[in-house]
């Protein structure tokens, strides 16, 4: 018994498949268009929001600046701001800064090269006038168990 479909039936099947493919293609095109539109809309709204946020920030900064340093009036001198002393009192000396940074570099380099916590601590004590080495050691090696 032959399994072949009759000629008319085969033509109908081909035609149906082609139509289905065309429908799917059209649906995909429509979906892509919807996605593009949505992305464009989102981009536009984001830009608008950015512009709005920047405007608010600029206004606020201007307000703060005016509060701190009002425009000069005839009754007051133009320059009325005085230098502000550092909050920490006496300014840290450069030597102290480089020494503290040096201690940290030393500890880091020793740790990377495989030295133990005790070895680094000993070296810090002998080379630098640091009473409590635990802060540096904890920062680099992690807290002691």
């Amino acid at each position, binding site marked *: 018994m032959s399994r072949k479909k009759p000629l008319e039936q085969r033509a109908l099947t081909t035609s149906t498949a082609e139509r289905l493919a065309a429908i799917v293609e059209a649906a995909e095109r429509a979906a892509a268009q919807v996605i593009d539109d949505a992305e464009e809309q989102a981009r536009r709204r984001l830009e608008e929001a950015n512009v709005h946020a920047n405007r608010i920030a600029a206004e606020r900064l201007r307000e703060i600046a005016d509060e701190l340093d009002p425009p000069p009036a005839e009754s007051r001198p133009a320059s009325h701001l005085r230098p502000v002393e550092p909050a920490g009192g006496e300014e840290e000396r*450069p030597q102290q800064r*480089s*020494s503290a*940074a*040096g*201690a940290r*570099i*030393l500890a880091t*380099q*020793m740790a*990377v*090269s*495989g*030295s*133990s916590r005790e*070895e680094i601590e000993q*070296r810090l004590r002998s*080379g*630098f006038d640091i009473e409590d080495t635990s802060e540096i050691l904890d920062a680099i090696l992690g807290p002691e168990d």
Partner: protein
Amino acid sequence: MLPGFRSVPFDDATALREAVGKSTAAVLVEPIQGESGIYPLSDETLLAAREVCDEAGVLLIFDEIQAGMGRTGSLWAYEQTPVRPDLLTSAKALGGGMPIGACVTTPEAGEVLEPGDHGSTFAGGPVACVAALAVLEIVDDPALLRRVRELGAVLRNGLLDLDGVREVRGRGLMLGVGLEDGIDAVAVGAELLESGLVVNVPEPGTLRLLPPLTVEPDQVERALGAIGSALLSYETA
């Protein structure tokens, strides 16, 4: 010293700062001076060197030919200092017996060098380079470096316990032994040579100890015994 170098007194941070000017290209230091008798530069001087180099925009170079390659218990001596050089030099131990020298730079400093800028006839010789790579493979081993530090500590503490020893300088297995006044280091060195221990006398009153990084603990003990005996015999002589 090649022309163009200006030397400053040892470990003098102020003199070092003052020596750096507009025409300075680099500051070259040996973090632990070897040939003069094992004198480590202080942290203060090294920090000053780093600071003045940063301020003036010049390079800081460490000569690590003697102090590098695991000698002090870290691959490079700078790793036990509070600064990081821009360049370092290595040689001798780097080749494990093969002749080789190397100039190691930070990536930033290395960018100014093109192939051929810093070369010589036998630079990059494959046999020497393979030897250096093999040495690096062995020396850059945390276990070996830890051993150097531990045996160095044993040697240092043992030396400090000996009569006649005034001070011990250096790190790891790079130690200078300062003898008490009146002790003739040359005579002590000669006596040690007789007993089978080779030490160097780089300056009057100092013994320099640079044992192999593979030295065994019992050899360290024997060396301590020999040095103790030599110092004792000198004192009783």
